[in-house]
């Protein structure tokens, strides 16, 4: 009798465990806001909540400072039974790895870093492919031949984006130049706006932003020059001068990961997906983009998706005119991940 009761109890516990929703948490580097990096990640969170319904439970902690507070936030989440935790910034990589060691049963995923562990994956999108496509559009629309690029920090990710963008620009406009201003912050709307204004004053007639707010886009609209956004579709911020955005679509990736955790097939990996995986894309091009350019962009996108063509196929020259990638060659992922030099056509310096 006692035994029967025990079995019954075990079965009860077992089924209730199975029925428990997967608890998924996100750590954000900034406030969710209405545009930008964290906003894009939160769109991904909302997307998976919708897709999986009551099979998952999601939460987030926003604006978590790097270092000790991040460690503490991660420990809280893991101790509260969250099974899958996404940390959405490189700056949390170290903290994530530390906490992953303490909670071997919890799965962690860090965005845009490089460390992995048995229970920690690394993920990012090849946004440079999208940047390249927006470069094609910028090159085709500029009249002054000067394009302004508002950049955050000189990390390899940003440098790679600037290079890919410039390669795109030069493909449609071989004499155009891309002028870079560093904001030294991922999110600082006044400084981002200042940077855009200084570029416009210097004669730029297309502004490409890579920072987190929509301030550069708004500055472009106010000064009647074209604008290209980043992270998410930013049309509403510059309705009359907006061309497109290089966008992340994190939801596509989060959906796959949650599925594999549910199936028990999850494995740590370094995921760096391109246009073909849906994690990156460009926002719908507005009517300001000439029809033949639209066609070109679509065609090149197709080539990139089928891997017939790579953004960093040679010949590529650096700023001093030195041949870095001979024709017939392409840059390896390792070179891309540690990129710290500018291609020909970029006007600006990487602080050393």
């Amino acid at each position: 009798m006692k035994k029967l009761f025990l079995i019954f109890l075990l079965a009860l516990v077992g089924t209730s465990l199975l029925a428990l929703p997967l608890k998924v948490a996100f750590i954000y580097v900034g406030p969710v806001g209405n545009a930008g990096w964290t906003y894009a990640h939160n769109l991904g969170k909302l997307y998976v909540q919708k897709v999986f319904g009551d099979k998952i439970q999601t939460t987030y902690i926003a604006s978590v400072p790097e270092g000790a507070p991040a460690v503490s936030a991660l420990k809280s989440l893991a101790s509260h039974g969250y099974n899958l935790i996404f940390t959405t910034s490189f700056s949390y990589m170290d903290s994530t790895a530390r906490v992953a060691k303490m909670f071997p049963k919890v799965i962690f995923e860090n965005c845009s870093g490089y460390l992995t562990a048995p229970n920690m994956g690394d993920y990012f999108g090849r946004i440079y492919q999208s940047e390249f496509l927006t470069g094609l559009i910028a090159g085709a629309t500029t009249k002054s031949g000067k394009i302004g690029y508002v950049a955050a920090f000189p990390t390899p990710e940003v440098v790679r984006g600037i290079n890919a963008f410039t390669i795109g620009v030069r493909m449609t406009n071989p004499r155009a130049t891309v002028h870079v201003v560093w904001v030294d912050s991922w999110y600082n709307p006044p400084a981002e706006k200042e940077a855009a204004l200084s570029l416009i004053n210097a004669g730029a007639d297309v502004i490409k932003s890579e920072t987190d707010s929509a301030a550069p886009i708004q500055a472009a609209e106010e000064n009647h020059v074209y604008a290209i956004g980043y992270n998410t579709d930013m049309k509403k911020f510059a309705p009359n001068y907006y061309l497109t955005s290089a966008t992340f679509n994190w939801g596509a990736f989060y959906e796959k990961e949650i599925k594999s955790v549910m199936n028990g097939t999850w494995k740590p990996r370094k995921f760096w997906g391109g246009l073909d995986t849906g994690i990156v894309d460009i926002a719908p091009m507005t009517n300001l983009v000439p029809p033949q350019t639209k066609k070109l962009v679509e065609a090149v996108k197709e080539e990139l998706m089928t891997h017939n063509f790579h953004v960093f196929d040679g010949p590529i020259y650096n700023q001093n005119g030195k041949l870095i990638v001979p024709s017939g060659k392409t840059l390896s992922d390792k070179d891309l991940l540690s990129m710290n030099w500018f291609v020909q056509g970029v006007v600006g310096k990487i602080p050393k």
Partner: protein
Amino acid sequence: MRLKIEKRNESASTLSVLSMSVLSVVVSLVILGFIILSLGKNPIDAYIQLVSWPFGTIAGLTQSLISMTPLLFTSLGLVLAFKMKLWNIGAEGQFYMGAFGATWGALFLFNHISNPWIMLPLIALLGAGVGAGWGTLAGVMKARLGVNEILSTLMLNYVAIYWVNYLVYGPWRDPASYNFPITAEFPKAAILPQYTANGINLGMFLAIAASFFVYYLLKWTRFGFEIDISGDNPKAAEYAGINVKKMIVIVMAVSGALSGLGGMMQMSGVLFRLQPNFSPGYGYTAIIIVLLARLNPFVTVVVAFLFGGLIVGTQQIQLFLQIPFSLVNAFQGLLLFSFVAGEALLHYKLRWLKA
């Protein structure tokens, strides 16, 4: 009706000081409650979440203690300076410089030393030394040139933060980090003894030991006595043969050394590598902590612990109620504000005058 402000004749009793401190916390909690309410959340729920995890569970308690450590070091540094009415706003910068010193020692100067008992004291000295130097800079400017220390220490914070940023983005960047802004990890010898898997380390105990040291310094030494006199009445101190200018420089140095030591402990005990923005403003929070603790080193330990728990607890309320993290800053601001208001009420009273 007219409002008149009068100075109180009697000095404030311990009881009224204590009740004022408690009251200012209560007032800020009430105002914060309205803010939470305006976000459409239940403030009572929020407060339960705020305290239950950081103070009510072992895991949460551990985190509160770890958060306390950097706050305590920087606070103790400020206790000394504030005792002399030297308004050192630069604990943040001194903390950064301490972390810089420790990293310099651990990764570059002494990286061939493999014995932790040689390495750790060396980088502790270096961290404290660089922090002391940063404090001294403001001290000398004040003593020699009469530069207001509030301004100089505040400005030097930015210099320290950008200096660390420069190193991490530039020459100190770990070659194995794909050019990401982060230094290499500290060698094993430069890591403080860790007592539990979740991060309790020697730094915490040293921070508490430091509070005894500061207490001893202030209460039982001639130096402490001179700090007291120079703070209360610099003229009288001069007449009594105290070299107040020298005192300014020394006190700023010791104050900076304690914050610097805190930076070293954070590196060697918790973070193990330098990266940008590794401090969420410990040095600024310390200002509020020591004011609430009324410059008593032991009370400072308690208040620093409560603030450590506050940082942990706010993540908790965010997790369950999705209330933004910036609420910590709002709460700290409210606390300081109501504390300053309470302080004024201790020394002055308001009286309605019939017109």
